[in-house]
């Protein structure tokens, strides 16, 4: 896109883009590390994830402040305005992703005291891989601003939902087998839910990017395969 007549305006917008990319990188790392800490019962790594979250929170605040000041100073229009509003929304989504990683990390202590079936951990790892891939791709799309790619990410969230539902069933089975599994499995259930939510945030970000690029809102229901909320109902 052509540059602004007032060149510092371009600097303001570049600052936002750069900070969003940084936040994205850190959020990705936190999620990956939280799952690794969970699977390996690595308390030190979990602690690192917890403390990293403050960096992400601070970055979100700074992006918000920069956005407000830019709106006040430059009265942005059209694509510039969408760009700035989009930065605020994406920063909020990434901050939530960080919170979810942090929440997973906090559960490491509770889960690590119990011995986890290897298979379960693998299920979680797979779920996390998909969510992280989703997050990574959406951050690439943020860099390229391609509305087509933003769309395809939005359509793919149902893979994560499907795996989450199967993990949910699996955890239920373990709990039914042995009541001593209930505590760790409940924690794992929350961890799985955290990771599944990351996919939703990635989808939010994809929708925001679509709006930033085109000025139109994506319409229609998101594809959903998350049927965990009905597992156990109607004798399923």
């Amino acid at each position: 896109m052509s540059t602004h007549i007032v060149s510092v305006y371009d600097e303001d917008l570049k600052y936002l883009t750069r900070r969003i990319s940084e936040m994205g990188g850190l959020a990705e790392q936190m999620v990956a590390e939280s799952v690794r800490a969970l699977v390996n019962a690595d308390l030190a790594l979990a602690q690192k994830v917890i403390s990293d979250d403050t960096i992400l929170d601070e970055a979100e605040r700074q992006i918000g402040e920069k956005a407000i000041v830019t709106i006040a100073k430059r009265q942005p229009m059209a694509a510039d305005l969408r760009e700035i509003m989009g930065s605020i929304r994406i920063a909020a989504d990434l901050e939530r992703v960080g919170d979810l990683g942090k929440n997973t990390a906090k559960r490491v202590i509770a889960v690590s005291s119990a011995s986890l079936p290897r298979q379960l951990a693998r299920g979680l790892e797979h779920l996390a891989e998909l969510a992280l891939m989703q997050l990574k791709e959406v951050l690439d799309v943020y860099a390229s601003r391609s509305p087509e790619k933003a769309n395809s990410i939005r359509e793919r969230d149902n893979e994560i939902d499907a795996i989450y539902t199967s993990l949910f069933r699996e955890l239920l089975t373990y709990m039914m087998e042995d009541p001593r599994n209930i505590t760790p499995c409940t924690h794992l259930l929350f961890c799985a839910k955290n990771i599944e939510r990351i996919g939703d945030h990635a989808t939010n970000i994809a929708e925001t990017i679509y709006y930033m690029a085109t000025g139109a809102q994506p319409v229609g229901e998101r594809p959903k395969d998350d049927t965990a909320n009905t597992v156990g109902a109607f004798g399923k």
Partner: protein
Amino acid sequence: MNMMSEAAVEKALDQKMNAVPFKMIGKDVSVYYGEKRALFDVNLNVRENTVTALIGPSGCGKSTFLRTLNRMNDTIDNCRVMGKITLDEDDIYDPSIDVVELRARVGMVFQKPNPFPKSIYENVSYGPKIHGLARSKADFDQIVEQSLQKAGLWNEVKDRLHEPGTGLSGGQQQRLCIARAVAVSPEVILMDEPCSALDPIATAKVEELIHELRTNFTIVIVTHSMQQAARVSQRTAMFHLGNLVEENDTDKMFTNPDDQRTQDYIMGRFG
């Protein structure tokens, strides 16, 4: 994918706006100043009880177009207007049209407040007097009060109606000029950068006024301030090098315009 296509969004917007009838229709309007062509076949319609903003860089033809709407260009010697402009159904360039009467129907407010060197009262009563709109003192009193009320100036000047209009502040003078335009009960009011000589508070008052005047009048405003166009208008037309580049719903124009030139201009970018 079920993204709502841009065409569908536009259709929805158009349907809303399409319900509003056209007050003035400009068809293939071209303007020449001597050999120099200032407007190129502009097709732009002005909707009734709507504020239409004309934007674009200096020299783009927006003021030229505005001035064709009440034949202000007639006062410029070597200026020729081609094409057709109608007010309701009447061709305003038809030889049978009385230009003075036309300008009573299509009033104008200029960039610099230009009150007559007369009293506030006479500034407002002058138009009705020459058009024979009132006879008795009571009638004139009523027109003056109503016009000043409509221009949001009454409370500030009611105790000094016989003081010179030029003694008012810039913002008050501009509202006096608006009261003067309103006094002859025009159907359309043209405003050529009415706030560019005013401070932000006076500007806000004029903008508030434009908002209120819209219920009774059709307004066309030329402005260099994009924010002002976005605030006061419902439709916006973008001119560039004598061409009409885009005319759209104002909300769409300032969030997601169709034309790249509009985009660059309103965002302060150079293409």
